[in-house]
């Protein structure tokens, strides 16, 4: 993670990171349990393909939340940005290539829609970043407010109804299976992961973001441009959310203002589970990616038990989130002991 270490040192550091190790162990146990009790679906390729289609939706949002949390903020507006930009993309696609139009219209329509959604995502993120960095409103309030704002825009555009009838070429590209096996959604997620890894470990920006999250005052006193750094971070989060919106558009073949409404909590849960310090300054990409996979496997596993209805899901997610936070608190040096010795 740090810019000063050699590759081998970094591998050792990664292996030593307790949170990453814990997540790897949890994932391994989950997979063993899965293989043991649901062997038929475990060995089926389609099980894994449907997971790889699903998790990029919230995984991409979680990556955005991770970046904002590393600088000591949070982004609760990711779902709203994804829906708003997805709806915008759908509207543009339909206006250039309405149902029944010439198939040759589809390519410019898709290109325009993708370009629009990425730009709109960046602008939405910029707006968040501006309010946080320049007006100095706590990130949790800003993004809670813009969550409502962006959702509101989405509701007004759609009148609350889903938009469908997209050109079939869109899902043929964004829901394709590369080589007949690898879903396009997974490829997009992987691309974003590579971009973030590159930013955080190979550029000056990464180092600056970690420092900004560690101590914003010292960052200011060291001459870092904290406003620009913050705005850029929220912009990245907005762009990743827009990509998530494109993935959702491909998965559902439609756009609606209230898709993925459980993803806000899920994205925060993933980032905390991944070992990112909510106070900023630390967190590993590897942890977050592992946490995304752990939660997807857990969710798919739950799906194979018909007795456990979907109603249990918030309960399980909320429980896991609190458990992880409590555990992280315990694993800080001395905290575990204090938990028992402190009596009045």
């Amino acid at each position: 993670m740090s810019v000063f270490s050699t590759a081998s040192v970094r591998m050792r550091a990664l292996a030593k990171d307790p949170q990453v190790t814990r997540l790897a162990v949890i994932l391994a146990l989950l997979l063993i349990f899965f293989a043991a009790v649901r062997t038929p679906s475990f060995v089926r390729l389609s099980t894994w393909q449907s997971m790889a289609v699903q998790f990029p939706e919230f995984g991409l949002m979680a990556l955005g939340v991770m970046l904002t949390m590393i600088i000591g903020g949070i982004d609760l507006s990711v779902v709203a940005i994804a829906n708003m930009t997805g709806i915008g993309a759908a509207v543009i696609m339909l206006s250039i290539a309405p149902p029944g139009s010439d198939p040759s219209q589809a390519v410019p329509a898709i290109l325009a829609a993708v370009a629009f959604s990425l730009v709109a995502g960046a602008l939405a993120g910029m707006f968040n970043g501006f309010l946080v960095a320049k007006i100095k409103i706590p990130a949790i309030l800003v993004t809670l407010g813009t969550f409502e704002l962006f959702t509101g825009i989405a509701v007004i555009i759609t009148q609350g109804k889903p938009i469908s009838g997209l050109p079939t070429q869109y899902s043929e590209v964004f829901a394709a299976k590369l080589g007949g096996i690898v879903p396009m959604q997974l490829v997009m997620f992987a691309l974003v992961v590579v971009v973030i890894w590159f930013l955080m470990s190979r550029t000056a920006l990464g180092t600056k973001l970690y420092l900004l999250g560690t101590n914003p005052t010292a960052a200011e006193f060291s001459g870092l441009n904290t406003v620009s750094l913050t705005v850029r971070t929220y912009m990245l989060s907005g762009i990743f959310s827009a990509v998530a919106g494109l993935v959702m558009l491909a998965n559902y073949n439609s756009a609606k203002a209230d898709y993925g409404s459980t993803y806000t909590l899920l994205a925060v849960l993933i980032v905390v589970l991944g070992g990112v310090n909510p106070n900023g300054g630390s967190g590993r990409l590897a942890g977050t990616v592992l946490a995304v996979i752990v939660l997807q496997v857990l969710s798919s596993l739950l799906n194979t038990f018909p007795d456990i209805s979907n109603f249990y899901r918030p309960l399980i997610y909320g429980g896991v989130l609190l458990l992880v936070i409590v555990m992280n608190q315990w694993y800080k040096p001395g905290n575990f002991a204090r938990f028992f010795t402190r009596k009045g």
Partner: protein
Amino acid sequence: MTDLLAVRNVSKSFAGVHALDDVSLTIGRGEIHCLAGENGSGKSTLIKVISGVHAPDGGTIEIDGTSHKRLTPMAAINAGVQVIYQDFSVFPNLSVLENLALTSELAAHRKLINWRRMRRIAEEAVAKIDFDIDLDEKVGRLSIAEKQLVAISRALMSDAKLIIMDEPTTALTTREVDALFRIILDLKERGISTLFVSHKLEEVFEISEKFTIIRNGRSVATKRPDELDRASFSFYMTGREFEPAHFNAPADSGPAVLEARNLGADGAFADVNFSLRRGEILGITGRLGSGRTELALSLFGALKVNHGEILIKEKPVVLRGIRSAIKHGIGYVPEDRLTEGLFLERSIGANAIISEIDNMLTPLGLLDREKTRTEAQRWVDELKIATPDPENAVNTLSGGNQQRVVLAKWLATEPEVLILNGPTVGVDIGSKSDIHTILQDLAREGMAVIIISDDLSEVIENCSRVLVMNDGRIVAELDPEETSEAELAALMAHDESEEAGVQR
């Protein structure tokens, strides 16, 4: 009659470092005692042991004839030990009345508030020291001296036998110091002992009856005031012979690199004029609240100025913010390195090179890791930062080494003017003299340096010129070679309103 407090052979280590090593201290009833030592000598740890905050690893504490093996804060208070910290631990948003009465109300486990009873309690408390104050005033609006009296009144409420005061006169004017001393003497009459904690001889010299001096966690001397003079005091404190060394700026060093003309910021300072040339070390000294920190922040673009102008290399500039000051070649080592200077959990390397990281890119715009590594190592070697690996987090370092990291960060920007606010606060003696040497060397190489400090010996030994600030104004410009610490202290504490005969 037995002593009121007897600390016998107390030791305490933190993570293997001896903060206290076999320290003993006795205080008689009604005695005014001074515990002296440099920053980091173990003074605060000893106070925390006496007040029950830290349990000692060895030794005993005897209060009023009762020996305590494991003293808790509650037990210490019940035994009559009260500590008044430098921040006074008052609630600024509450009134004097509430500050005084709430503790006893809480201690009595009262669930409902009876304002009449609380007022009576508060009135009794201030009457004990003849303290004339509006009980309904918010404590945050009081002067520092008044806040201190509130803290003293509160301490006396709980039948105190020993009052410990941490650097009590640092921010007071001479008149306020006199008023405080009258109260202390009055307490003495009533058999209440006082323990001053100080790192300056002049602070409480005239009133103290006994001095215990500790150094590096050991008690090195227990003396009466007539057995001490400046030289011996500073020898006990530092372990070095007192040698008044001075720094001299080169005679002709060209035009001014930094100049302030009638500089003023509302509510902080006004009419500040000075000019600084290459190779000079300018000292700015003054008490807490004299405007010295605000002036430093203004020169670094972190605080807006309302009046006057700043000239850099004889050209007027407007500093729109910290980044603009840095562009103009100004560096600033902040007052509080922990909150303003360092990224504690990050590596020493990252901390040292952050200000120059944009110059360490490969042609493709990526970080040149070889370069960052060698640069980090270079700073560790150059400033003799004691660490096995620049990859280690900064919070693994001692105060002195942390301060070197902050210095490294600024030297990396190759500033023309380096402003240091309290460069050696909380730094061990060895590092302190190293840092002084570094600063003098930088000046000899042509850098213009400003040291802002209330450590008088630091200012006198290292600066080629000293400005004294008092109440937001520069009241004197001195040549340190012809100035004693006592004269400097008097100028800092001088109360303007006193001379004019103005009553507060």
